[in-house]
């Protein structure tokens, strides 16, 4: 029996099967999400940067998640003001609820000069929920420090 020649190996379309495999794995992940609590938690954590490892979060980014979950946010001007009347802005948003600060030019609206802000974010999906609380504080070296914690 003769070993396969290089030309024959080259003709086998490994890339085709690899892409199909990736699509199938992604589709199975998505199809399991409504019933699998671990996948739900993983995606909720992804939306609010609570994944334990950045690289585990990054690996999930190609998984399509347009207009997924019920994502809400509230922004307050300072850490000391906590009553609901002091809410600067609140709303429902399509996916990553912290985008109000992390993404786009909204940042310029909420973070000016030395003034920081506080943001609460909620994501929910079929009974699973995640609430995080974040503070943006001016850093003397420039910009703002953005720190968050999970709230019960």
């Amino acid at each position, binding site marked *: 029996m003769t070993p396969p020649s290089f030309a024959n190996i080259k003709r086998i379309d490994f890339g085709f099967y690899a892409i199909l495999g990736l699509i199938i794995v992604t*589709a199975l992940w998505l199809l399991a999400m*409504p019933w699998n609590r671990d996948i739900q938690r993983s995606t909720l954590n992804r939306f609010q940067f609570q994944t334990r490892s950045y690289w585990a979060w990054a690996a999930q980014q190609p998984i399509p998640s347009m207009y997924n979950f019920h994502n809400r946010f509230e922004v307050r001007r300072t850490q000391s003001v906590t009553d609901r009347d002091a809410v600067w802005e609140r709303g429902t948003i399509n996916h990553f609820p912290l985008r109000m600060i*992390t993404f786009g030019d909204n940042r310029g609206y909420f973070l000016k000069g030395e003034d920081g802000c506080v943001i609460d974010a909620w994501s929910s*999906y079929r009974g699973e929920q995640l609430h995080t609380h974040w503070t943006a504080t001016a850093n003397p070296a420039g*910009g703002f420090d953005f720190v968050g914690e999970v709230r019960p």
Partner: protein
Amino acid sequence: MSNDMTSVIQSSRPLLAFRVVQWATLAALAWKIGGFVAMVNCYVAIPLNQDFFPWVFRSSYVLTFAYLIGCISLACAALTQSARRRIIATIVSLACMSILCIHQGSHNDMTFATAWWTSLWSVWLATRLPIDAPESLIRRAAFVSRCIISMILLGGAVGKWTSEYWSGQVLYEIYFEQRDFWFFNLLRSRFSLEGLRTVATWYSRNVIIVETLGGLGIWLLPPWWAAAVSIGVLASIATFSNFNLYSVLLSLMGLAAAGFFVALRVRTPD
């Protein structure tokens, strides 16, 4: 049409499909160029120190570099006649889309997630163009393209399989309450608050059903039908909700068009 011309068209179908996808992805990236510039200016003026992201994926310069190089490599892939340069250009654009998917300043934008999938398809097709017979290659390319589109629509659908979306509450809050867009402005001018809430319910259910059917069914359709249905569905999503979504969907519309190259029939003289 002469036999020579027929043969040229048949042999170039996968390459034509490849080029359409590169231009469509480039158009998708360029769609929000104004917003991108404003966004990067804001990031430069107000950096956000968030430990979750490694510094390299917080840098505005990395973001700008990935965006620009991504655009240039897409144009190079579309224009070059060299198979080797085409492969290199697609690998570079895939790398740039990967950076844009995981960068602090662009992770939220699904433009880069859809462009990541079209770039992955492009890398694969570019490597096969010099090797495979055009007819079988374009059939596989169209099959992979409709599998990708199905999977992406499924991603949209599954996240909406909730009572909040089925009741229309989420999309009511996002779009119907205040969004300044022709379709929602029109609806607000025509319906009372109560009527608007009912319209939101049916709008949301329509989105869920269309995305679910598309996600579960498009990959099963014949190539031409899959292409036509995909482009129709994708265009309707952006036209009736947010023109900015064309940046997310143009690359997928180009990918869907690969199906038309399978169905293309060239008349040959008797």
